[in-house]
C-alpha cells in the first residue's frame, strides 16, 4: 500500500517556478529520502501534500485521501516543519499539550519520554529557547501522538551532532514500530543510513528515484591525479568518466565502471600523485543521473 501518492503534481507561484510534474509513491513502512538543494521544491511538495497550498494541477494524497477534502486523515500524520515557530508566550509543555489535544488520546507519557530523550526542558517559555531547542520542541510535537506517517522537512538543521544521533535513533525506532517516514533534506549523507529509497529533486522536477541499495552497489570513485606532463582533455575519454576537469598537470573526475580499465588507463600516464576517494552521493546524482535524463 502506498502511504503517500503524488501524481503529476505541479505548483506555479505566478511566474516563479514551484514544482513541475512531480510523481512519487511512498510505500507503507519505508523510510523515503527526498533530496535536493535549497529552493528545489522540497517544501513546496510537502506543503501541497499537506493541503497548506493548492496544486496548480495533479494530485497528492496521504493514506489515499486528499488533505484538504478530508482533513481528518492528518490525525495519523506527524509533521516537523523546516522552520519552527510557535505561539510565543507559551511554555513548552502548554504547546505540547495543545498539540496533543488535537488527537483525542492521552499523550502525557509519550511527551515525557520524548522530552527526556531529546533533553528538552518542558517548563521553559518557547520564545526563550534557542533555535536548536525550538527544533526539539518541533520533533516532540511531531511524534507525541505516535503517528503512522512522519514527514520531516530538514529536521536536523540546528541540532548538534549528539542530538542528531539521538534523533536518528528515534526515527529508526518509530520506523521499526511501523511508521512510514518521509525525510526531506539537502544533505544526502544524513539520509543515507536511514533510507530505503531516495528521490532527487532539482529545479522543481524529480530527477531520479532510486533504491539505496542500488546506489551503494555501484562503485563510484573520485579520482585526482597529478602527472609529470600536461594532461589533455581527451586522455580519459572512457565510458564511465564524468565531471572531468583537467588543468595543466592535474585532472579530477568521477569514475563508475570496471576498475581494471581505469587502472590500465592510468598506467599510461606518468604520475606524480594520485588519490582515489568516495564521492558523496550528491555528486553521484548530479553527475550521472542529472545528465542521463
Amino acid at each position, binding site marked *: 500500500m502506498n502511504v503517500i501518492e503524488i501524481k503529476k503534481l505541479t505548483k506555479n507561484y505566478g511566474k516563479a517556478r514551484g514544482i513541475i510534474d512531480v510523481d512519487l509513491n511512498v510505500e507503507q513502512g519505508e523510510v523515503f529520502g527526498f533530496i535536493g538543494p535549497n529552493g528545489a521544491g522540497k517544501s513546496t511538495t510537502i*506543503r501541497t501534500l*499537506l*493541503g*497548506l*497550498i*493548492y496544486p496548480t494541477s495533479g494530485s497528492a494524497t496521504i493514506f489515499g485521501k486528499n488533505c*484538504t477534502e478530508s*482533513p*481528518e*486523515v*492528518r*490525525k495519523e*500524520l*506527524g*509533521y516537523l*516543519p523546516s*522552520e519552527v*515557530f*510557535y*505561539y*510565543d508566550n507559551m511554555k513548552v509543555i502548554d504547546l505540547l499539550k*495543545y*498539540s496533543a*489535544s*488535537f*488527537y483525542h488520546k492521552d499523550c502525557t507519557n509519550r511527551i515525557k519520554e520524548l522530552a527526556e530523550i531529546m533533553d528538552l526542558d518542558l517548563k521553559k517559555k518557547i520564545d526563550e529557547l534557542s533555535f536548536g531547542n525550538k527544533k526539539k520542541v518541533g520533533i516532540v*510535537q511531531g511524534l507525541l501522538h505516535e503517528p503512522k506517517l512522519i514527514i520531516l522537512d530538514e529536521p536536523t538543521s540546528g541540532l548538534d551532532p549528539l542530538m542528531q544521533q539521538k534523533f536518528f535513533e528515534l526515527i529508526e525506532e518509530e520506523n521499526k514500530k511501523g511508521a512510514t517516514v518521509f525525510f526531506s533534506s539537502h544533505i544526502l549523507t544524513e539520509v543515507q543510513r536511514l533510507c530505503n529509497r531516495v528521490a532527487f529533486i532539482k529545479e522543481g522536477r524529480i530527477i531520479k528515484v532510486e533504491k539505496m541499495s542500488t546506489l551503494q552497489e555501484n562503485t563510484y570513485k573520485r579520482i585526482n591525479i597529478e602527472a609529470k606532463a600536461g594532461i589533455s582533455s581527451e586522455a580519459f575519454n572512457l565510458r564511465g568518466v564524468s565531471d572531468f576537469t583537467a588543468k595543466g598537470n592535474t585532472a579530477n573526475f568521477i569514475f563508475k565502471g570496471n576498475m581494471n580499465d581505469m587502472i590500465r588507463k592510468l598506467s599510461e600516464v606518468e604520475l606524480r600523485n594520485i588519490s582515489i576517494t568516495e564521492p558523496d552521493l550528491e555528486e553521484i546524482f548530479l553527475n550521472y543521473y542529472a545528465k542521463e535524463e
Partner: protein
Amino acid sequence: MNIFIREWRANRKALIIWSVCMILFVLIGMSKYTAYSTEGGSDIFNQMPTTMKALLGIGSFDVTTMSGFYAFLYPYLALTTGIHAVLLGNGIIAKEERDKTTEFLMAKPVSRASIITAKLMVAVINVLIINLITLVSSILMVSAYNKGESITGEIVVFLIDMLITQLIFLTIGTLLSAFYRNPKASGALATGILFGAYIISKVTDITDQLGFLNILSPLKYFSYQRIVEGNGLNIGIVLLSIALIAACTSLTYLCYQRRDLSI
C-alpha cells in the same frame, strides 16, 4: 474546542485592557456633562455655526440635556469599539500566518472551516463583552449625572446599534485576513477602512448633499436623531446590516478555504 480555548486565552489580556479602557472612556466622557449642562450653556451652542457643531460631533443635538449629550458622546464609543472589532477580526485569523504558526496548525486533523468557526466564536464573544461593559457603564454613569428623566431605553438602542456596527467591522476584519495572503497588508487595510468610514461620517455630517456616501460608513447606518427622538432603529436597515454581516462571514469561510496559506 481546543482552538476556541486557546484563542480565548490568547485574547484574554487584550479583552481586559479594552474593557478597562471602555469603562474609563464612559467615565471621563460623562464627567464632562456637568460643564455642558451648566446654565447658559445652551446659548453658546445655539450661536455656534452648524459646520462647527458638526465637526465637534454635536450636530443638531441639544447637548445640554442628557439625551442629547449621550448622542454626542456615542459616536466616539462606536468608533472605539469599531477599532477593537476590526483589529480583533483581522488579527485573530491573520496571526497564524503572521507568527508562522500555520504549518503547525494545518498539520493537525482540523479543517480550515472549523478553525474559522472557533476563531469567529471567540471574536464574537469578545465583542459582546465589550458591548455589555459599555452598556452597563453607560447606564450607571448616566444615572449618576442625570437630573432629568431616565434615558436607559435610548442607551439600550444606541448599544444595539453599536453591536451591529461592531459585528460589521469584525466580519470586515475577518474577511480581509481571509482574502489577503499578506497579514501585514490586511491589517493596514482594516484600519484604513475604519478611518475611512469615520472620515466619511464626518463629511456627511458637515454637508447634507453627500448623504449617499453614508452607505460606505457603517458608523452612519442608523440615524442618531431617530434614536434620540425615541423611534428606535429602522428595521429595514437592521435587516440589511445583518445581511452584510452574513455576507462578510460566508465570504470569510469561502476565501480562507480557497487560498494558499502564506508560510
